């Protein structure tokens, strides 16, 4: 089971964009033969609740948990997720944090 948890700052990403991002994440996971589907969770950080470098945050955090991947594939997936975010949200590259974690982290 592959899961993806996205933390986004309130007011920065409209619902319609969320749907496009979710579709894009599923497409990246399928295209790279990682899994057939992704269980998505969206967590909106209210204004005043998200901070980066001690200042109000505009960053999104995307955390994909899946089977263990070779590092080269992991990097490819992380790059694709960054590109997806920039394309759909017009955010700066420094405003997207992506992790691809193995389900078994031992």
């Amino acid at each position: 089971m592959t899961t993806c948890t996205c933390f986004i700052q309130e007011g920065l990403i409209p619902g319609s964009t969320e749907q496009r991002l979710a579709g894009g994440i599923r497409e990246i996971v399928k295209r790279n033969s990682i899994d057939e589907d992704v269980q998505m969770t969206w967590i909106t950080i209210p204004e005043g609740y998200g901070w980066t470098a001690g200042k109000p945050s505009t960053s999104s955090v995307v955390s994909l948990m899946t089977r263990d991947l070779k590092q080269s594939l992991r990097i490819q997936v992380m790059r694709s997720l960054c590109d997806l975010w920039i394309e759909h949200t017009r955010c700066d590259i420094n405003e997207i944090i992506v992790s691809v974690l193995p389900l078994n982290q031992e």
Partner: protein
Amino acid sequence: MPLYTCSSQRGLISLSNKARISRAITDVHCKVTAAPPDFVHVFFFDSDPAELEQSTAAAGDRPPRFQLFGSIRAGRTDETKHALVSGMTERVADILAVNASEVGMSTRDVKAQWVMEGGDVLPEPGEEAAWLRRHSEKLAESGS
């Protein structure tokens, strides 16, 4: 990365204290690890009182009212982790004017190679300066 979360019941931490706590956590992290502040993210969550009651019953005693959790890069020494936990717990308790026992904290190691920030895989602890130099050069070349 690091990503620190702070959970408490709704209304226990004012917006102004959230700002102060985020700066304190960033300050402690940067002083202890020498990492640049731009890496440090702090998110606050309102916890569900029902969940808190359940955890209280399970624990058999009163859990801390304020829970800090840090996802930090793997490779930090136990001494560094202890300095992070004790430093942050103390500063947060001070800001909230509560006893340090009211603030609980734990950390989780995440391998740097599992995380990408600014379009680059994160550096191992201690390699931030070279990473930042390369990252800045790359952004300058791409015109970002």
